């Protein structure tokens, strides 16, 4: 598997896991009471665990370079999030939400595109290739 495909799969997985993490945070947040101990509910803890897992996978994935591809894939999590919000919490999906999300994805793509050059090259090139490119 090429490093980019591997990175894309990792980041894709991270976006799905992260979006579930957010859904569990929402479920947990809905159960908060005035007591500070209500923060220790299973849904919140599970949500945080999913976030940690997702961020570990994300860090592993993002090392493969090509941020213009990987950044928007992270933001795919927002799309899943919208779907879960509809299914689990019956939140209305308005035109503005779709339009706004579309722009956000586009913007993230551009930021990724602009971040490309400042990223160190992934260590896939051989020494001879590096000599040629200099």
């Amino acid at each position: 598997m090429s490093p980019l495909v591997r990175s894309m799969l990792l980041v894709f997985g991270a976006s799905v896991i992260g979006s579930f993490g957010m859904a569990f945070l929402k479920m947990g947040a809905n159960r908060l009471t005035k007591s500070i101990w209500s923060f220790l509910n299973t849904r919140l803890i599970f949500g945080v665990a999913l976030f940690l897992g997702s961020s570990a996978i994300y860090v592993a994935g993002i090392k493969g370079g090509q941020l213009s591809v990987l950044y928007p894939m992270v933001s795919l999590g927002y799309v899943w999030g919208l779907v879960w919000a509809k299914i689990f919490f019956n939140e209305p999906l308005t035109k503005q939400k779709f339009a706004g999300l579309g722009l956000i994805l586009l913007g993230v793509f551009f930021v990724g595109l602009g971040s490309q050059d400042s990223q160190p090259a992934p260590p896939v090139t051989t020494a001879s290739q590096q000599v040629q490119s200099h």
Partner: protein
Amino acid sequence: MLGALAQLLIKKGTDHLTLELMSLVTNVPLIIGYSIYGVNTLLMVLALKDGEMSLLYPIIALTYVWTTLLSYTVLGEPSNAYKNIGIVTIVVGVAIMGRGGRK
């Protein structure tokens, strides 16, 4: 905003990341970064208590805006057109989403 700071520190931390457990535990920027993420998550939960998830989740994308601005100011990275277009587009997107929320 806090998320961006956390990302910056974690990125700094991963610069000298090795798989040995001891070096992970003593990687200060990484640890501070994740601690800020903790505070960040706490604030997010408080926001979610009364807010819509479909609205709040994409607003996290503002992290990209703060990260970019921080990398300009703190890391002194040169500004570039793609990034600038990107952060403006994200801000407009978030503004439009905000208008689509439950009144």
